């Protein structure tokens, strides 16, 4: 069961920053994903964590080709998914599905649940007969724990957790091999989060699914994943099994991240040593030279850190890290020191606002 299902090779996504009123000029790039390699084995759950804006969603979308990657490729089950075109690509999409963060906006408000679930079947000519489709829909609903009466309702009639179940049912409808779940529980209430996390785990067992779970909450990712990749500013900085990562974080960023997450236990909280990072995440449009983390790294050294970009290397079997000084930091030879926060220039690009130029001159002049 250790056959590789997905292999991402040197994936890059650079979004051009356009300026200019009449003729768009490219004035720079947002290096949202900048050289990521990762492998996901069949049947496992790979968790991707990192702060907002570090490129997690963009990577997930590029893998599904919802964004076209700038460079690199994804090999899916032995086939080069990035090279597929037209009909071939569309057919192949059946095997890779996605679950979105916002359960409401990812469902078309004008579609009933039935039509949402049938849409994929229809696109791949899988709704042969009425009875069979009906049976399939009922199966799907019971798999995600919704009553069959849900079929004729519209998304706005459900609660957040139920909507997310609809989104999961839609992804399941086509019997995919891989499900990419982008922040599947972060929009949900705490008490409902656990229901969806458990549901995802049960479905994985039942249907032998492979997951890529993207989240900013390391506790959720650690709970659900077999292996975890930590992203910082467009690149992976550490990769290990969930237990290993928690037991022995090697990268300074992972250490800081782990120490920053609040634990719902006052006894633990009172005793905890926090590694407080100075300043903000630098802008991905203007990433720091060398090690991307060097502007905030409490272990930063005078040599190599700001000149040479560390590669993700195997530190010990199954545990990779991208830091020049991982050995010395682990042994305690290098001690953390104070870091002066550096001003981060906001590019005025918000991840929430799609970068679309003004529709016309008149719109640009009087918005």
């Amino acid at each position, binding site marked *: 069961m250790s056959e590789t299902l997905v292999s991402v090779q040197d994936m890059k996504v650079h979004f051009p920053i356009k300026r200019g009123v009449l003729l768009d000029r490219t004035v720079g790039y947002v290096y949202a994903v900048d050289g990521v390699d990762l492998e996901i084995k069949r049947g496992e759950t790979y968790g991707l964590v990192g*702060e*907002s804006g570090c490129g997690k969603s963009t990577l997930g979308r590029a893998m599904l080709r919802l964004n076209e990657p700038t460079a690199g490729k994804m090999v899916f089950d032995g086939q080069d998914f990035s090279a597929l075109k037209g009909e071939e690509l569309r057919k192949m999409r059946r095997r890779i599905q996605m679950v979105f963060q916002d359960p409401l906006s990812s469902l078309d408000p004008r579609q009933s649940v039935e039509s949402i679930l049938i849409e994929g079947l229809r696109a791949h000519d899988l709704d042969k007969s009425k009875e069979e489709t009906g049976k399939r829909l009922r199966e799907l609903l019971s798999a995600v*724990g919704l009553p069959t009466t849900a079929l004729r309702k519209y998304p706005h009639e459900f*609660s*957040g*957790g*139920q909507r997310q179940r609809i989104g999961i049912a839609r992804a399941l409808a086509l019997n995919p091999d891989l499900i990419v779940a982008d922040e599947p529980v972060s929009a949900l*209430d*705490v*008490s*409902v*989060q*656990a*229901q969806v*996390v*458990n*549901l995802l785990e*049960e479905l994985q067992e039942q249907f032998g699914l492979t997951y890529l779970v993207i989240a*900013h909450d*390391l*506790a*959720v990712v*650690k*709970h*659900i994943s077999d292996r975890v990749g930590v992203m910082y500013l467009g690149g992976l900085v550490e990769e290990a099994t*969930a*237990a290993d990562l*928690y037991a022995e974080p090697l990268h300074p960023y992972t250490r*800081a*991240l*782990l*120490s*920053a*997450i*609040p*634990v*719902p*236990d*006052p*006894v*633990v*909280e*009172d005793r*905890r040593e*926090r590694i*407080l*990072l*100075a*300043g*903000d*995440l630098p802008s991905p449009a203007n990433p720091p030279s060398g090690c991307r983390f060097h502007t905030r790294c409490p272990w930063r050294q005078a040599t190599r850190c700001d000149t040479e970009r560390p590669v993700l290397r195997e530190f010990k079997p199954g545990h990779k890290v991208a830091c020049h000084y991982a050995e010395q930091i682990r042994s305690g030879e290098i001690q953390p020191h104070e870091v*002066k*926060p*550096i*001003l*981060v220039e*906001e590019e*005025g690009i918000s991840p929430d606002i799609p970068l679309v130029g003004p529709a016309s001159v008149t719109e640009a002049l009087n918005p």
Partner: protein
Amino acid sequence: MALLEVRDLTVVFQRKGEEPFYAVDGVSFDVEPGQTVGLVGESGCGKSVTSLAIMGLLPKRGAKVTGTVSYDGTDLLKLSDREMRDRRGRDLGMVFQDPLSSLNPVIPIGLQVTEVLERHRGLARKEAMIEAKNLLDKVGIPDPNRRLKEYPHQLSGGMRQRALIAIALACRPKLLIADEPTTALDVTIQAQILTVMKELVQDLGTALVMITHDLGVVAGLCDEVNVLYGGKVVEKAMRHKLFAEPRHPYTHGLLASIPRLDAAPGEKLTPIKGSVADNIPWTQGCAFAPRCPNALDICFTETPAEEEQLGRLLRCHNPVVPGTPAAEEVPV
């Protein structure tokens, strides 16, 4: 007498042709100087409405506020709009969840801080500038001189939240209400902001009301915790007691459904079944009853009263008894 005493605070939203809606339903709590009191609960349980009611920021039309909110002996609910405006900023500070929409986008940060200083503390422009710089420095904004001249959109989310805290602190209010101040931020930034807030409480003796849905934040910051459900406080206890032995089935269920960073591998989560949509009205019984694993028949017919039980305030007919698991396996 405590600095802030909230008694039986009730907020009813009444829309024409609709049933009155009890967003906050008889909430009481005290806050002492230098103390942090937490309000936790899920989305829609009335946390924000409570804070807005204390600050007198609810719309006059449509929202009916009853009960008392006494600050240093005066009932804030009885003050006129004018008097309340004077108090806000001077005595009461507030930090909101969304820092961008609570800052004025067309005024530089510096001016927004000095404005408050000039108005409430009567400082001259020059002094105000110096004080503003100190404030930004105190909340951890690098290079404050330059930041003072920048507009909110030029700052990152974390920096905006700090600016907002700086504004709230400008008049050294004795009471600060923070409504999900870190929910929109990354954990590493959240850690920075929470550290700043902790220092404030310790160094200045500010009384802090911390509103959040994150039990982890509560565990590290609050002295006393109020757990809200459907507009009522269902459990109120000191932090160590609450987390060590949650007695209300809802609190217990919440803690069992959070994945913990320090949990053993393979540990299962036990979610609470259903969602807030299943609640029954409090007038009929216990709102949590349809979701509660401990529910008895009486829970559907009789409203539980707030009582001193097991060394804390509880609103429950059948609290979780030590040693027995409250939540059973819930089918998903």
